[in-house]
């Protein structure tokens, strides 16, 4: 091999003074970095993925991990990543697959937006004392309502309302399928959303029967592969989501490799054991916006108009025009998935280069729908790169009704964003179907952690709202006046429809 090996990505070292040779690192590292040879614990750093399992489990804090211990000659154009991708493709001639979200160093718009707070001229609200309304209804709202006065003076609603989802917080968990992640991971999140009164997505992997008790908090997905989709599945969900695209890989389908299709995954997806589960790029019954309207209505008709139907697209250049079409398809909510969204596996070139940031997509979709007078026809759910409660507040102020979190929920269960989900070896029991690894994730504990995260963010959101003198999430929605751009260029600020700091 004329290329030889590339420098180590991570170097693991053990402080031999501290180490008590308990072998927990050997047990815990599913990638096989550690082994025992006679008296010594040996290390093969090349196998390390920086999942931090060993560090977290070492009782003596004896393990140290160093990233990129060996430098290339530094060069602003020929980065390490660029060079290593070439070595890889020179060897294989193949498309590079990668995990987790966008890894290029794009500026993060959320971090260049700041929130407002009240001082003197209007009082802030103390959420401890005053009620804070963070409950969010997702779905169509009538443009006007008609009421009738009864004889006793009460009023009665005459307008017929269509079903909405009632979420106790605008923070929901996005779609990560059983297959991509483990049943214990799904179970933990399902319990957490049930406890916090919010919702999570099933992903395109069917609904395992152990999740049936939480079905009132599950949004079932129908994607181009139609895995696990039958009428029972559709009826179980509290809402149905048509997945058109995904922020991590806009424009392409996906496939779950046969190795991950174990017995249980096979029966939940309803495909043979060990077969590839291929989701084509488009839905082959949707080649136009009219066809989308047909599927939306077909799903409603099949479930007797009892379920809201969401449509999820990747945030792309034309998202606003596309969303306007979706809003007219009869859909109840549009999910916009920004280019920082995570995934179990996506071609690197798509993950890093295709799509637009969620901040710009939400703002432009909201503006377009308002401009056309149809914002009430659909809710907007923002996803892809929501890392903290401030991002939630900013996304809502830019026009979203609610957000989906994905990676953040996994991180709450232990994920270290090592990006090796595709290997089926996730040492945290999240992105794996290997039973010994799955067993490491205890749903009793992990569900509590995810619920804690949702509760904590919701509390912070209420505090942020209170500080801004806002006592209801409705008043934050699309409220650009509560945002200012800091070091953003003028044209981007005009897309976001926010003013400059100081203005």
């Amino acid at each position: 091999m004329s290329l030889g090996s590339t420098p180590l990505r991570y170097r693991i070292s053990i402080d031999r003074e501290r180490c008590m040779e308990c072998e927990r690192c050997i047990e815990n590292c599913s990638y096989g970095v550690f082994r025992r040879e006679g008296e010594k614990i040996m290390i093969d750093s090349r196998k390390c993925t920086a999942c931090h399992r060993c560090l977290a489990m070492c009782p003596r804090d004896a393990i140290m991990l160093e990233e990129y211990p060996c430098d290339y000659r530094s060069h602003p154009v020929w980065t390490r990543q660029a060079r290593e991708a070439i070595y890889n493709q020179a060897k294989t001639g193949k498309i590079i697959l990668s995990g987790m979200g966008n890894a290029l160093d794009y500026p993060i718009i959320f971090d260049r937006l700041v929130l407002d707070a009240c001082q003197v001229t209007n009082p802030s609200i103390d959420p401890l004392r005053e009620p804070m309304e963070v409950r969010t209804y997702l779905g169509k709202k009538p443009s006007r309502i008609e009421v009738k006065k009864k004889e006793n003076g009460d009023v009665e609603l005459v307008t017929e309302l269509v079903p909405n989802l009632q979420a106790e917080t605008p923070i929901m968990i996005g779609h990560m399928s059983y297959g991509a992640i483990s049943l214990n991971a799904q179970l933990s999140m399902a319990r957490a959303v049930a406890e916090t009164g919010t919702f999570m997505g099933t992903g395109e992997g069917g609904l395992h029967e152990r999740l049936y008790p939480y079905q009132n908090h599950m949004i079932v997905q129908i994607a181009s592969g139609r895995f696990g989709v039958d009428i029972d599945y559709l009826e179980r969900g509290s809402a149905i989501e048509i997945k058109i695209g995904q922020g991590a890989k806009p424009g392409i389908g996906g496939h779950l490799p046969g190795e991950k299709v174990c017995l249980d995954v096979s029966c939940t997806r309803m495909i043979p054991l060990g077969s590839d589960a291929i989701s084509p790029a488009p839905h082959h019954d949707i080649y136009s916006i009219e066809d989308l309207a047909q599927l939306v209505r077909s799903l409603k008709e099949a479930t007797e108009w009892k379920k809201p139907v969401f449509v999820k697209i990747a945030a792309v250049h034309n998202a606003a025009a596309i969303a306007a079409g979706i809003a007219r398809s009869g859909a109840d909510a549009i999910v916009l998935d920004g280019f920082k969204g995570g995934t179990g596996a996506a071609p690197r070139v798509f993950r890093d280069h295709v799509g637009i940031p969620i901040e710009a997509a939400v703002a432009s979709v909201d503006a377009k729908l308002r401009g056309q007078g149809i914002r009430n026809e659909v809710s907007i759910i923002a996803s892809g790169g929501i890392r903290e409660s401030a991002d939630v507040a900013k996304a809502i102020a830019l026009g979203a009704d609610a957000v989906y979190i994905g990676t953040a929920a996994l991180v709450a269960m232990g994920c270290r964003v090592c990006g090796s989900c595709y290997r089926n070896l996730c040492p945290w029991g999240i992105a794996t179907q290997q039973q010994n690894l799955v067993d490491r994730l205890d749903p009793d504990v992990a569900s509590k952690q995810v619920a804690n995260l949702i509760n904590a963010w919701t509390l912070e959101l209420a505090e942020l709202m209170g500080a801004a003198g806002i006592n209801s999430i409705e008043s934050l929605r699309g409220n650009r006046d509560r945002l200012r751009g800091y070091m953003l260029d003028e044209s981007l600020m005009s897309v976001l429809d926010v003013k400059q700091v100081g203005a």
Partner: protein
Amino acid sequence: MGKTVTIDAKGMHYTPLNKKIRQAVADGAGEIIIDNVLGQRFIGNGLRGDATIVVNGVPGGDLCMFMSGPTCIVHGNADHAPGNTMNAGKVIIHGSAGDAVAHSMRGGTVFVRGNIGYRGGIHMKQYDDKRPILVVGGNAQSFLGEYMAGGLLIVLGMDGSEYFGRGVGSGIHGGEIVIRGDVDGSRLGVGAKKLPLTEDDRQRIAPVIREFAGAFDLDPAELLNAEFTRIVPASARPFAGKYTWE
């Protein structure tokens, strides 16, 4: 067999029509005859049970989508995607049908007496005892059986025409496509390969052909003995080998 209920669909929107069908099934109807159907979509959508629905006229798109059990007989042509993501039951169309017939079908049977449009049987899949079957009496347009992951798709070419589509079975990774006559290799999509129909295969598909002939009052003899080409996946992993890891 329960009672027969007749519905006049003239000028009716699909939602009240489907409500009536559901009501009839709930009331124990064994046969539901719908007259004057003209473009109403979603007939039999998500319906369970074992009733027979007779559609007189031309139903609109997504006929019997997600259906799980009933039989639907159409005396006329059908539009886009009849049998879409169907789970169980039968759809028997006496005329021709549009594109994406039996799209993602998971179980049950779709018989079309005439021709079908593009992407017939696309992404049909099987699991356990669920093995969907699509039989086309006439001919089929291009992209037949694309991404097929299971099931059986037969094109009988009863109008005497040779198979003329292209891109047959692109990305097929399960199931089989059986087409009357020889299919030139250039008509196959990436990931598909053709094989001659063996005597065993012929025995295996014979009951399906007999059932098809029975549904339309045809003599099965000639069909049973015709020449067929069998198209199957070149590999169960068409996309393995396309990727390397970061």
